[in-house]
């Protein structure tokens, strides 16, 4: 499993921001979902606070599509803005998952 070092990601890393700023290929840890229904629904999908997702597509002006486990989930832009995430670096969350 290849680790990609921080230095190789060409832009400023975001330590705490909204999912709406996600770019394709980036990995995030979900920090908080500021919407009662969406928080519960995301939790059911497996995208709970504390879990890791990968941004697979960013539809211009539209939803952010993330991969949570093997599940693709489309998140409307407005909702994505209310989801606080912390950027992770590829590979880390897998190691963590294996030891949890």
């Amino acid at each position, binding site marked *: 499993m290849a680790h990609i070092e921080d230095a190789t990601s060409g832009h400023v890393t975001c330590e705490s921001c909204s999912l709406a700023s996600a770019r394709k290929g980036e990995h995030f840890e979900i920090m908080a979902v500021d919407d009662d229904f969406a928080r519960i629904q995301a*939790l059911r999908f497996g995208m709970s606070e504390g879990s890791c997702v990968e941004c697979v597509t960013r539809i211009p002006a539209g939803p952010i599509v993330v991969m*949570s486990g093997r599940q693709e*989930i489309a998140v409307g832009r407005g909702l994505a803005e209310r989801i606080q995430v912390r950027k992770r670096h590829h590979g880390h969350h897998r190691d963590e998952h294996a030891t949890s």
Partner: protein
Amino acid sequence: MPRSTEAPKSADALCHGHPTGTVAREGVETIVLAGNPNVGKSVVFNAFTGTYVDVSNFPGTTVELTRGRFGDIDVVDTPGVYGVSSFNDEERVARDIILTGDVVVNVVDAVHPERDLFLTLQLVDMGKRMVVALNMADEARKRGVGIDRDLLEDLLGVPVIETVAVSGEGLENLKASICEARVGHPGHDIEAQLVEMAARVGSRAEALMVLEGDPIVSERHGVEPGTGRDAIYLRRRDRVNDICGHVVTETKQGASFSTRLSQWMMHPATGIPMLLGLMYVMWVVLGQWVAGGLVGVLEETLMLGYWVPFVEDAVGSVFAQGSVLFTILAGEFGVLTMTPTYLIGVILPLVTGFYLLLSVLEDSGYLPRIAALADRSLMAVGLNGRAVIPLILGLGCVTMGTLTTRILGSKRERFIATALMAIAVPCSAQIAVIAGLMARTGWLYSALYVGFLLFVFGAVGAVLNKLVPGQSTDLLIDLPSLRTPRLDNVVRKSGIKVWNFMKEVTLFFAAGAVLISVLEVTGSLDWIIRVAAPLTVGWLGLPAEAATAFVMGFVRRDFGATGFFTMNLTDAQLLVGMITITLFVPCIASAMVILKERGWGYFAGLFAGSIVIAFIMGGVVARVAGVL
């Protein structure tokens, strides 16, 4: 634990040879199927009951409940839900059915255990006797997902059966396992509270609902809803992740073709051309091949060439031509002439073609991707991408589309989507008749027709978005795996839909034909034609007889469009007529559903609004098209 692989011959034979002692045989009365959307529940239901029900790859299709029999046992299919609670109608329905069920068969998608086991653990915590069907085992293997079934069975404490429902694999095992259904191992942290609450409300399942803060179940028992939902859910999520960590092994594969295809479908740069390509294919298949070719043969050669002269002769030999009964049976709008001509000659072939294409779309998993692609555009009319589901189903049948608005997140969205469908979305039968008529004109008029409808759709939507109070919800939708639809599934499913649709259409067409004929023989029709002349001739630039079509349009819009068949119209007049009748009042069947789902006030407003919009737009089109 021995498990028979023999098919039970009947319910009596079902549990013989299974002296497990853990289950009271006579206790099995109702089996409830529960699972997330698109996990193959309906196919499993079919395997139990032998009757085919709607199976699709789209979240939210099974709005209605389906009941069947498995020997002497009742089997109930529930709407696909991600959890048991009261967030929407489907969850409320599923919750109540699950609460009353004796045994739950929980169908789990083996490809997405992290998502599906959340519901499983909730059912386990509810203390339901249950069996887990680990479905789509073949797809999981293909995608490199391995699940340790034995270990999962141990961790959950209930039988876990691997199945591939679409091919029937493992279904006999599943049926046999009903006898071994049992209560699983619950999460321990709320055990004490659960036992205490169960003593107050009567059952463990309802106690869990109360603790999770379900307002409806709490009210039923006169207790305060619990406040611990988030904590309970989080711990359940942790337990799901823990179980998955132990039982799931994944051989990570690179981005497969379907992953890339999925992204192409959703990105505007590639997704819009794909969508346009799809629409072009639909136009070629439905508009050219079916409407142009098949309908020509069926309608003109078979129905008008053989059937109508035959009926006219037969009826004419009993009742004199021109008599009241002759007119009703075999006249211009005759029950035996016009009704079967359009039903068999025009509507049947096009509706069949349409539902076949729709089923392919549903089963392929393309629809939710269109939802993601269209999200931004639909926000302009106060909806989110999810609304493409009811809207596209509305193209099949507005009644079905209206029922499916239940999957939308807010009352405001249901309000807007229902209105848009009733006004600007033609149903398949109507498209059938209109395609038949428009096939006579050039492609320009077809394009103008679609363009005007899209304009009205956008304009009405934008206005409603401004006027309707409340807040629309944001898109949050899970995208099912892309699959190649199975031909047998598609054919059986569309067959059932076409059959149900045609039954309803036939009834309304026949009733409408009688009504129009009665108006004709009593002279009322002539009176209406004269009175409406300023509107039809003066404003719309159509022949005076067009009033007949609008009267027919009150019965059904497709029936109304049929009224234009016999008039000799110019291409421009045809366009005006088609647009006006499309925007006209919804058919009686969908009007009933709208009334039931949205109430009188909404219905009256919609009815009046659609007539006003239809005639205003018709007049505008008439002027634009230069008819006058």
